[in-house]
């Protein structure tokens, strides 16, 4: 028993560690780890990953909420969409076949890679549109030049919610936090400043993954022998990773991780195609 347990803990620790260093989250690495290395069925990997996303986001968000960037109202409005998506996705994950899940996972990897490569243009909207104002979606962030604050508001809530619905659906289906998609919805579509978008996305990931995890747990589709060590290992790895992060060469690491993402996408895509 101890060899299996030790192997799972090491695998999960590594996934959590790399997930924290790359900023992509543990789910992105634990799923291919379990499917490719530990030869686990895709549904098991998805369930175990959702649980560990809940655990890591709970560990990390303690720090994120304190920094004051998280916009609670934006999070709540969009969580209506992500939770709807996640519950639907997690329900469907029990019905659709493994190759479909593997193919969707490969697509999510490509989206995350594209997200890491895109150029960031910050654009702050000082006055939002009618719905955003009705929902009081606004806030202030410190001006990067020092001293003052920059007021921001939001636009295109329906567009952002639509992308969030997809992010939730993917989260429930393939077990990732879908942070890259969430940040895109807020930052690119709703024009919310990037730092606020990232912090709010981290706040939301736990709730989205939690919704999916509850469906999996209630269905009895989360084998305890795998999920328990994976959750513990990923969390420990993520906490260690976030401690090491300030000393790492982030630019170089990111480029390395993008290559890994592409390799994972190719492997999972290949599995999907050969499984159909």
């Amino acid at each position, binding site marked *: 028993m101890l060899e299996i347990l030790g192997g799972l803990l090491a695998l999960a620790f590594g996934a959590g560690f790399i997930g924290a260093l790359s900023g992509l989250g543990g789910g992105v690495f634990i799923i291919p780890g379990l499917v490719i290395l530990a030869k686990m069925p895709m549904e098991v990997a998805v369930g175990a990953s959702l649980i560990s996303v809940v655990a890591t986001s709970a560990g990390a968000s*303690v720090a994120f909420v304190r920094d004051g960037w998280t916009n609670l109202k934006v999070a709540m409005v969009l969580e209506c969409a992500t939770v709807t998506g996640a519950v639907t996705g*997690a329900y469907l994950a*029990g019905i659709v076949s493994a190759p479909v899940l593997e193919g969707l996972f490969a697509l999510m990897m490509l989206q995350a890679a594209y997200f890491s490569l895109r150029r960031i243009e910050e654009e702050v909207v000082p006055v939002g549109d009618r719905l955003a104002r*009705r929902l009081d979606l606004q806030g202030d962030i410190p001006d990067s030049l020092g001293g003052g604050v920059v007021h921001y508001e939001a636009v295109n809530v329906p567009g952002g919610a639509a992308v969030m619905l997809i992010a939730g659906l993917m989260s429930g289906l393939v077990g990732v936090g879908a942070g890259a998609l969430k940040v895109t919805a807020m930052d690119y579509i709703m024009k919310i400043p990037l730092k606020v978008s990232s912090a709010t996305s981290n706040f939301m990931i736990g709730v989205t993954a939690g919704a999916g995890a509850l469906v999996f747990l209630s*269905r009895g589709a989360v084998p305890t022998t795998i999920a328990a060590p994976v959750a513990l290992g990923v969390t420990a790895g993520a906490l260690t990773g976030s401690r090491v992060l300030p000393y790492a060469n982030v630019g170089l690491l990111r480029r390395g991780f993008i290559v890994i993402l592409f390799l994972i996408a190719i492997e999972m895509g290949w599995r999907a195609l050969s499984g159909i």
Partner: protein
Amino acid sequence: MATTQVNPEQPSAQVSRDEDRILRVWTPVLLRTILLSAAAILLFGLMLMATTAPGYYVEHYRAVEAGHIHQKEPFAQIAHGALAGDPHSVLTVGLFVLTLVPLGRVAFCFLLFIKERDYTYVFLTGYVLFGLALGVFLGRIG
């Protein structure tokens, strides 16, 4: 970019003091307590498994590897098993406690918005809580 100078000592008018206090003080305390309890239960469960039923662990692992995933048990049976010291039930309880972290966070926000009489957001957070509960229901029937 619209930049306005404000006194940094003065909190932004839109962020109420209650919201601030709950976010900064109580949420982290709540999250950490639930998270640590879940981790403790999971560790205890694994140690219990290693000492009392290592054979079951290996057997279960191999079965899952072979594709036998589903193990839907009534909640009462899980609770009974956990109290009786059955390692599998203890681990299941640990995993459920872990998912209480996000649930607890939304519930906290729900109470906050009720207190602020912000009914738009009471409705929205209520919907999120409903969605989480629906998840449990769908999992049970699905």
